[in-house]
């Protein structure tokens, strides 16, 4: 049982590859990080070489200093918390509404024909243009930003949920129907699990959009938050600071993405993608 394939003369590379070194290197987090280093070094080098004015593109080293200063001075913290709260609340509300509306529409082609075009129409309205109305309705505080974020985040979930719910194989639905399952039971037992991969893509896209949404909301008018800080620093031509915040936003986005991936791993264990793959 333990004798390995040592006799394969016609396939020397199989035997010549005993140590899984290159694979573990690939699989480690090292490579992406080293890519980051390469990008940063290239960026710094190009800025110096081409003599790019720092007002256009600051050097990564300057950005790092700005980042450090921002946190060390305590300046970033309250704004980070405000924006984080807007993002998370907006994401949660948008995702929730998107999924629920997606379920309603996905289960009823009638609802789809009735409502979906209006949703698309609403969705294409530039949020910047309707932001004043949001402020009038929801006030100057965080609520209006959260709602702007939610209205941006909800559409990918809506669209993905609808299609995901419809992707359930007909024979599974027939099987459940034959057991006299109600539409609701079919939804719970077949459509929803089947829709999960779609819903997770939607969450991934929505995560990214909610970061953008919160910032757009703050651009329109705010007294705190990272978007407000960007405007402020832009006004002061503090490009290194702007980039530090942009990087902070990216990290928030990547963090949300990793969160979505982690939840997905737990829920989609049965998915075939995780099955073993042949070495061929």
């Amino acid at each position: 049982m333990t004798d390995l394939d040592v006799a394969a003369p016609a396939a020397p590379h199989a035997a010549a590859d005993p140590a899984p070194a290159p694979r573990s290197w690939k699989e480690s987090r090292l490579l992406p990080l080293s890519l980051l280093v390469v990008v940063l070094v290239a960026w710094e080098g190009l800025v110096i070489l081409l003599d790019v004015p720092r007002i256009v593109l600051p050097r990564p080293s300057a950005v790092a200093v700005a980042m450090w200063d921002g946190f060390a001075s305590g300046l970033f913290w309250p704004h980070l918390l405000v924006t984080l709260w807007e993002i998370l609340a907006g994401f949660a509300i948008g995702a929730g509404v998107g999924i629920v509306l997606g379920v309603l529409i996905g289960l009823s082609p009638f609802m789809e024909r009735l409502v979906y075009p209006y949703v698309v129409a609403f969705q294409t309205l530039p949020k910047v243009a309707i932001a004043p109305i949001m402020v009038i309705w929801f006030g100057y505080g965080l609520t209006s930003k959260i709602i702007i974020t939610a209205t941006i985040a909800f559409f990918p979930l809506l669209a993905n949920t609808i299609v995901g719910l419809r992707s359930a194989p007909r024979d599974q639905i027939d099987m459940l129907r034959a057991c006299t399952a109600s539409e609701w039971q079919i939804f719970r037992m077949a459509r929803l699990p089947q829709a999960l991969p779609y819903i997770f893509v939607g969450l991934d896209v929505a995560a990214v959009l909610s970061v953008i949404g919160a910032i757009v909301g703050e651009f329109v008018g705010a007294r705190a938050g990272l978007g407000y800080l960007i405007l402020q620093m832009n006004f002061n031509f503090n490009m290194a600071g702007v980039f530090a915040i942009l990087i902070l936003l990216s990290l928030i986005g990547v963090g949300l993405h990793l969160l979505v991936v982690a939840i997905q791993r737990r829920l989609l264990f049965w998915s075939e993608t995780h099955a073993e793959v042949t070495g061929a």
Partner: protein
Amino acid sequence: MPDATGLPAAASGPLVRISALEKIYATRDKGNVHALHDIRLDVADGEFITIVGPSGCGKSTLLKILAGILDKSAGQVEIAGRAVEGPNRDLGVVFQAPVLLPWRSVIENVMVPAIVQKSDLGAARQRAQRLLTMVGLDGFEDKYPRELSGGMQQRVGICRALVQDPAFLLMDEPFGALDAMTRETMNMELLRLWKSLGATILLVTHSIPEAVFLADRVVVMSPRPGRIAEVIEVDLPRPRRMDMFNTPEFGAHVGRIRRHFDSTMELD
């Protein structure tokens, strides 16, 4: 007044009444397929009917219409005096493909009808466990469908159809992926269950001896459009025993059915 099967019996007459049933599938290339033509069949309460016929003659189509998951094109189908409008609680269905839910473990798959019909889940789990043991799958309760072999998946599908002790069973080639011995044991188990439940069974099979061995009547179908070529009364005594396979009466029935295949169709 409900009878022993749990299905309210029609005031008089058979449990299942099919008359002038037609099914035409519309297909993408406009070449419609006339799958069933002028099907007429009555099934008495408690009867065991087997259906044989060449591949593509409409057996699965017929079962799906009876299960209430496929619309007929014309004709009448009644179960217990009611036109079939949709699925029926007293029905258990074994599909031709196993159709398991990949995100549920084996035992959870077996329990699906119990969950759907809001039965006592503790009792259902016990029944599911007993059925899994019966089909030789104890120890696999907590595996997931993609970790099972083809035959094992099919057996899970059989357990699922049986878990609610249905009064009326529709089985579409339930034992097709099983080896000969398992198949024989399953046949005996099925007959035992049929007896103890007093159920009515419609079973599609490709094995003519199996069809004869199990049935009160064998329905022989012919293809395109699917029609009933003959309905053969099997007058072998009950309970059936393995050694009956070698009796001349048995052989006569098998021979009579085989003739249909030889004459009406070449390969199809």
